[in-house]
């Protein structure tokens, strides 16, 4: 194995020698701290031996490379949806499994319909989650409702898992009077206080140190809650990633970092993004419990996140999960992947579809049927289209939302500027169709 980036293609291969089918953490050496408590019970000779051992000296030159640290990838489901023979026991009940499945299917339908709406010019912009649904839903399903989710922008499936309605999605996408965000952000910047889903912001990785602070507050509150923070492998190059992970370890907070390593940051492939052993190796460097999972295997993602949550909340300590997956769609509707990757590569990953894989598992368990599937998809399509038609016609928020919420109360300056604006708009209403007649 060369000393280069973990290629995404290695992850999908079920025969990959570096994969594991049982739950194993790559542990940091943080546990050694308690060792010297036992010194009183030891004689001087063994104390000296211990000191020498802890110095971990070598008298021969030798560098450490990524090869020394081969982080395995947890897989439970084979590509055909059958569990590996030696796979760890699965603890996912029928109700949760079906909720996960329906959420993934809903998001797939939503994404398809919204891309179509964008192509028709009804929507300015959209971002799909296609191919990464299991990474998002499998992790979100392992949380408690009181846990905070702080996403990057491609995790609408986690929001849906928690009950975000079609009306609420459409309200944000069209930024009109039903938008919880009051029409202030581009499409896909969702947020819901009621669902403990922090409003998305475009700058990458800013949510990472924020998640650490949020989780510190949760630790202080002592209710056994934690924060889950999503980001991509590209965002992990930002300073905020390093700042956040280091602070999480040092400040001992219950936060779960979930990296969606989806192969691309817009057009930049992973081998132009980093050279170490993926993102997981960095967690270990920061003294954070770390695991790498097959992000297209919902059972693996879920099992890892359940264990991560338990560890984080019990020990007030962070965990990093690297989900190896693939961004099947473009970065956004403004992107055209044909300029930087092949159709063959995309098709290879389409065949590893996380939804199909999980569906086979459900079918094998007799928890799901093709008939139910047909009805479900029909329902989703109908609902999404009818809500889209309804919401796209709704009016904007009141004009005054232009200046509210900058501060808790608008400043005198801002009120004065608003008064000036109103006067101008009254004078030239024909030039401002969005606000004309709304003053």
């Amino acid at each position, binding site marked *: 194995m060369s000393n280069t980036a973990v290629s995404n293609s290695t992850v999908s291969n079920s025969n990959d020698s570096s994969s594991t089918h049982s739950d194993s953490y790559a542990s940091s050496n943080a546990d050694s701290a308690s060792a010297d408590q036992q010194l009183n019970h030891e004689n001087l000779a063994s104390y000296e031996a211990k000191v020498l051992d802890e110095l971990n000296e070598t008298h021969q030159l030798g560098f450490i490379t990524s090869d020394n640290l081969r982080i395995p990838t947890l897989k439970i489901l084979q590509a055909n949806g059958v569990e590996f023979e030696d796979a760890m026991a699965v603890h996912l009940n029928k109700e949760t499994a079906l909720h996960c499945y329906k959420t993934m299917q809903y998001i797939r339908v939503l994404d398809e319909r919204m891309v179509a709406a964008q192509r028709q010019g009804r929507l300015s912009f959209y971002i799909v989650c296609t191919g990464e649904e299991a990474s998002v839903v499998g992790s979100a399903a392992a949380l408690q409702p009181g846990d905070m989710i702080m996403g990057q922008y491609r995790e609408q499936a986690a929001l849906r898992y928690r009950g975000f309605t079609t009306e609420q999605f459409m309200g944000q996408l069209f930024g009109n009077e039903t938008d919880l965000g009051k029409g202030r952000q581009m499409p896909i910047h969702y947020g819901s206080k009621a669902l403990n889903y922090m*409003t998305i912001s475009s700058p990458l990785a800013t949510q990472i140190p924020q998640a650490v602070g949020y989780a510190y507050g949760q630790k202080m509150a002592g209710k056994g809650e934690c924060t889950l923070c999503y980001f991509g492998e590209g965002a992990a190059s930002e300073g905020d990633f390093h700042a956040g992970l280091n602070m999480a370890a040092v400040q001992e907070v219950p936060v779960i970092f979930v990296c969606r390593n989806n192969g691309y940051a817009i057009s930049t492939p992973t081998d132009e993004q980093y050279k170490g052993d993926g993102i997981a190796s960095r967690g270990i460097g920061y003294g954070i419990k770390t695991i790498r999972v097959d992000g297209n295997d919902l059972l693996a993602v879920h099992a890892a996140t359940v264990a991560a949550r338990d560890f984080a909340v019990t020990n007030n300590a962070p965990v990093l999960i690297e989900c190896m997956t693939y961004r099947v769609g473009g970065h956004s509707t403004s992107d055209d992947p044909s300029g930087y990757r092949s159709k063959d590569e995309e098709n290879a990953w389409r065949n590893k579809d996380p939804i199909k894989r999980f569906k086979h598992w459900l079918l094998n368990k007799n928890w799901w049927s093709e008939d139910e599937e047909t009805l479900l998809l029909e329902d989703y399509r109908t609902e999404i289209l009818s809500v889209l038609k309804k919401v796209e016609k709704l009016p904007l928020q009141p004009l005054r939302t232009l200046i509210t919420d900058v501060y808790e109360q608008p400043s005198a300056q801002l009120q004065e500027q608003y008064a000036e604006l109103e006067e101008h708009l009254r004078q030239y209403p024909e030039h401002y169709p969005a606000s004309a007649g709304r003053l």
Partner: protein
Amino acid sequence: MTTMNLLQAVNNALDLAMAENDSVICFGEDIGKFGGVFRATSRLQEKYGRDRCFNTPITEQGIAGFAIGLAAQGSVPVAEIQFADYIFPAFDQIVNEAAKFRYRSGDQFNVAGLTIRTPYGGGIAGALYHSQSPEAYFCHTPGLKVVMPSTPYQAKGLLMAAINDPNPVIFFEPKRLYRAAKGDVPEQAYEIPLGVAEVVRSGSDITLLGWGAQMEYLLEAAEQVQQEGISCEVIDLCTLLPWDIETVEASVNKTGRLLISHEAPRTGGFAGEISATIQERCFLALESPIARVTGLDTPFPLAYEKEYMPGTLKIYDAIKRSLSF
């Protein structure tokens, strides 16, 4: 009342805020056991425990991001950036995140509890990286409040108000005055409202406007020209964002002249903003051009620091020129 220097006033404000509200949490580089490089957080860890007063790694963007998340959760973080010169790694978190948190979420989330304290300013032989006055960068950011006290009394009252204000506040402390400024400070908790300027000296011939450490020079110059029969009205802006236009406007309408002074470089400095606003509002009342006495458009120097500084003599000279225009 008790006599405190500006550092003791800051420490006292933090102490009272932490005693009053268990959600107030202080953190930053070296602020724990050591009490901060200037000792602003002295004894707070001892008193309130490591959970509520602690060291962070050296990561300003991490400190700011952490503080934002903690505030969003409902706690009341008071983060320290060791020197204002080192706030720039946190610029994105402050400008793109803290300032926009409430707006972008449609008021679902906010960072109401957030306060970021940081020592600023020169006159201490700190050269480029221990002397800057970066307030203007932040004054260009809707959503933030920017506060700069000049006395121990103000430092305590404004800091307590900043901590309790339902908006993110950047609190610049004049480090040149940390120990040099002494004054009477009430022992109990009190707040000085943000966004309100203080007329610290009444006068009739010219209005002198400044904030933070610059007030010392403005008052000295006012005293000097007084002996020559020139009466200065001196205003301490206290809060730069949002700033108290009315008080300045009323004063300039009375005196007909305005001099604004800050340590930061002139171009793009906050004096420019004030100057534009006042000429819009007081155009017919003005007897002379609005004067700016500021730092030069250079990095903060070392060997010629005194030459760079907008000191008393430069202010004195500018007053005379304004009066003889």
